[in-house]
């Protein structure tokens, strides 16, 4: 409870989102940026500021005048000098807590020659890389189990794609965690509800009875006359509410806020406490069930412990989170309720922790125990943990395994859907491989004017080929999109770089802190309509 130190003060506004353990995870991360492009520097700027562990920039470009209009991390004095050094100097100056380095190397050559280089990183961010090199990089990261985010800016359109084999999340930060066990009160809770006699109370105490007690009592009465069953249809539910209302006292000048809350929360009383199917499938997952090894991640060991807890001490239910939402109440009743739920939650967590200790020994890593905090967090969030298994970029790129229907359906339902930009980008990259430039882009070597019409025809053909290979109608992308794409001609706009910089850094933070839920797996942003769309490709 001391006055915060300067680091805590500096990070105060983000610690309120991901707390000290999220910050520690961020500070352990090692990030690699391929190409110090405008979009690349905007992304890592937003990662250096909150304090990632370290950054390495790989770039062989020399700073030119065109960088000055796109990239905030170069100055006119840097023109003619290596961009890797220029941007890493100006980026690292943002936060003294972040270590950094640069490699003045061609990223494509690194991908080709030194695949093992990428193994050291937590996250690789690839900008301005396409075609064969990109596919190779994605394969390398997939094999080495390194998270990869692919980013592409094109005019007012932005694209990003995450590839991770498996991403587990304990704290997905749902809006609220409420698990009050009305249908199956544990003994301490049932006894507490029984200890009150609503009829014998004075009006002050009666008007301050927390709604949890009101509902528990009403449900108890209900069950006695309904063979212990919960109200299960509309009529019964209305009847149950009526039962709650019969306890209300209509006295002039007395506001029955607690009864209003009870009626508003009555659905919680008749909703059976169950294990959500998404959680059941995590508990049933082979990674939780299979033989544990010293390399089994903490998440799966705890998941296994929770599975065993459910089958034994938990009597079919998840560990109790133990939080009580605020409600109209006198202090004592509320604090007592809090204590009762919290005590049960601690007992559940202790039971899970005991199982974790056994499993850790079984896994052959007794010398590396799992911290109790981590187990507590899992138990508290047990109904909201998540496992994301991404599709690889290779699966997406191969027409035989591509999720073509996702794109086809999106375009069929709305021709202006952002899927049109996705297809244009993919086909545009194909054109770029042949033409050596984006369709519509002036030829930097010859300096000739571009023939916009013929470039549009080239792109239109590439799009048709791309769609046909995936069994989609060849005219699924509108001519307007083709023409506008050629107009943009690979333009790097700082506003798009900055926007993607924000979007991608949010996703990176979610991956690195293992909190909140990153996209699975592609986001396309249209800066004309200001709309983002997410696809699983």
């Amino acid at each position, binding site marked *: *409870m001391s*006055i*915060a130190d300067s680091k*805590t003060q*500096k990070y*105060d*506004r*983000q*610690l*309120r*989102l991901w707390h000290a353990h999220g910050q520690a995870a961020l500070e352990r991360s090692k990030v690699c940026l391929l190409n110090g492009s405008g979009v690349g520097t905007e992304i890592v700027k*937003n990662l250096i*500021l*909150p304090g990632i562990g370290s950054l390495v920039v790989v770039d062989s470009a020399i700073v030119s*005048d*065109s960088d*000055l*209009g796109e*990239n905030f991390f170069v*100055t*006119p*004095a840097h*023109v003619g000098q290596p961009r890797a050094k220029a941007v890493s100097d100006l980026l690292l100056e943002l936060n003294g807590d972040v270590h950094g380095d640069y490699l003045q190397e061609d990223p494509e050559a690194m991908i080709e020659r030194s695949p093992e280089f990428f193994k050291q990183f937590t996250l690789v961010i690839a900008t301005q890389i396409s075609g064969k090199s990109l596919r190779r990089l994605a394969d390398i990261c997939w094999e080495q189990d390194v998270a990869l985010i692919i980013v592409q800016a094109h*005019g*007012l359109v932005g694209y990003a794609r995450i590839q991770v084999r498996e991403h587990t999340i304990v704290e*997905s930060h749902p809006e609220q965690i409420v698990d009050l066990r009305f249908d199956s009160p544990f003994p301490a809770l049932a006894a507490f509800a029984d200890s009150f006699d609503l009829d014998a109370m004075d009006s002050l105490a009666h008007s*301050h009875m927390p709604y949890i007690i009101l509902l528990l009592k009403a449900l108890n009465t209900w069950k006695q006359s309904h063979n212990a069953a919960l109200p299960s249809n509309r009529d019964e539910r209305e009847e149950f509410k009526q039962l709650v209302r019969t306890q209300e006292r209509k006295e002039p000048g007395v506001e029955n806020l607690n009864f209003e809350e009870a009626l508003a929360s009555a659905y919680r009383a008749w909703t059976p406490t169950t294990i959500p199917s998404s959680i059941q499938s995590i508990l049933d997952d082979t990674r939780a069930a299979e033989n544990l090894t010293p390399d089994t991640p903490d998440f799966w060991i705890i998941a296994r412990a929770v599975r065993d807890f459910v089958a034994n001490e938990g009597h079919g239910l998840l560990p109790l989170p133990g939080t009580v939402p*605020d409600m109209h109440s*006198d*202090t004592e009743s509320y*604090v007592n309720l809090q204590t009762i739920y919290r005590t049960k939650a601690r007992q559940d967590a202790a039971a899970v922790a005991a199982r974790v200790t056994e499993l850790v020994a079984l896994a052959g890593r007794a010398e590396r125990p799992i911290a109790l905090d981590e187990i507590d967090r899992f138990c508290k969030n047990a109904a909201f943990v998540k496992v994301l298994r991404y599709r690889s970029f290779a699966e997406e790129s191969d027409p035989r395994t591509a999720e073509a229907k996702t794109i086809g359906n999106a375009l069929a339902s709305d021709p202006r859907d952002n899927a049109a930009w996705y297809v244009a980008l993919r086909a545009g990259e194909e054109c770029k491989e042949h033409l050596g430039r984006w369709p519509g882009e002036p030829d930097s070597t010859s300096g000739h004017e571009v023939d*916009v019409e013929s470039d549009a025809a080239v792109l239109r053909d590439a799009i048709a080929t791309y769609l046909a290979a995936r069994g989609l109608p060849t005219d699924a992308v509108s*001519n307007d999109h083709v*023409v*506008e794409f050629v107009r*943009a001609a690979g*333009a790097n*706009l*700082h*506003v*798009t770089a900055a*926007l993607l*910089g*924000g*979007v991608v*850094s*949010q*996703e990176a*933070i979610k991956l690195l802190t293992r909190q*909140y*839920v*990153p*996209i699975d797996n592609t*986001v396309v942003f249209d*800066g*004309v*309509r*200001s709309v*983002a769309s*997410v696809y699983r490709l």
Partner: protein
Amino acid sequence: MAPSINSQQRWRGVYRYLERTGPFANEGFEPGEKVKDFLHTIKVLVVGAGGLGCELLKDLALTGFTDIHVIDMDTIDISNLNRQFLFRAADLGKPKAEVAADFVMKRVPGCKITPYFGKIQDKDEEYYSQFTIIICGLDSVEARRWMNATVINMYDEDDPETLKPIIDGGTEGFKGQSRIILPHFTACYECSLDMQTKPTTYPMCTIANTPRLPEHCIEWASVLEWPRTFPDKKLDGDDPEHIKWLLDQASARARQYDITGVTYSLTQGVVKNIIPAIASTNAIVAASCATEAFKIATNCATYMSNYMMYVGEQGVYTYTFELQKKDDCPVCGAVAIKIDVPANSTLQDLIDLLMERKDIRLKAPSLRTGSGSLYMQAPRALRDATAPNLVKPLRELLEDGGEITVTDQALPISMNVTVRFSD
């Protein structure tokens, strides 16, 4: 000395959009030199040099705007450094507007940024009318209402130059929003005031008698105990000694009631109503605002219509939709707002309603009719003279359907209200 920069190369990306038209260009877009010159010469205003303001200055400078003004009344605090990337530890205590302007001008030669360290209310219509576009990165509802009403009030339909588009952004944690306001053509900030969630407040009886949460104990310390103990000292949420005092008081109360969870961080959060903030979300929202500024300045693409919400907590989700203009908007509407009240409710009841209604939300309204003052907050003599009206039933003061003019410190303009008796 900096070498000369090839501007055709430097603005390559931007010019690609300005040298050719396309199917998504806005009506009236004319590619060519004229639109480039316009972009490079118009004056734009950035209101706020905080999380959004720092991003906006960078984004606008690197889009080719060269005459940018920025206004901000704050100085730099250590908790700004995790996102307000134009500031360093050595700048603590200095004016944000000045440090931000200097930084961007040094980094982006050719861009002139004129800072003003002070309040938006220090400036008048003459000041605001020099700008072509006004972009707001503010952190309070009050400041937004003031800017909105001021700019909308400047519009004269006989003079198109007086139409000043406002672009407004805001963030909270992983969420943010941006919007465009074209005065009198689209919904204004006041039209959608009821979308704003009111800051969390706790009932006084809970704070005083039945605390349940650590927040209730902190509110007790700051709202009741502080003024009782230090009647002449204003509570300063940035003064660690003040926060420490509150923390000690709140902790003692929490112990007394067996409440857990009072911490330094929570105490400061409650007292200052702190909203979590990160660089990423500021980048998204500011870039969206700057993109719209680029489109409005050049017409190179159609504008966003007209509100975007970005939510990044669970995946990525945007909701972009057209906010509707309200005919009876007190700021931009053509007709007076109507209020229905029983004829024997008092003038005080009416004032309470004006303060509580989500779409009006006044702070300390003064009311008058065509024939005289009903209740005036100031000057004191007038307040004392009109105070007896507060307890009078409305039927003694007004006709059914009568119009009153309301002024308030929350709004720089007056609003007309038609009072109808509901019985």
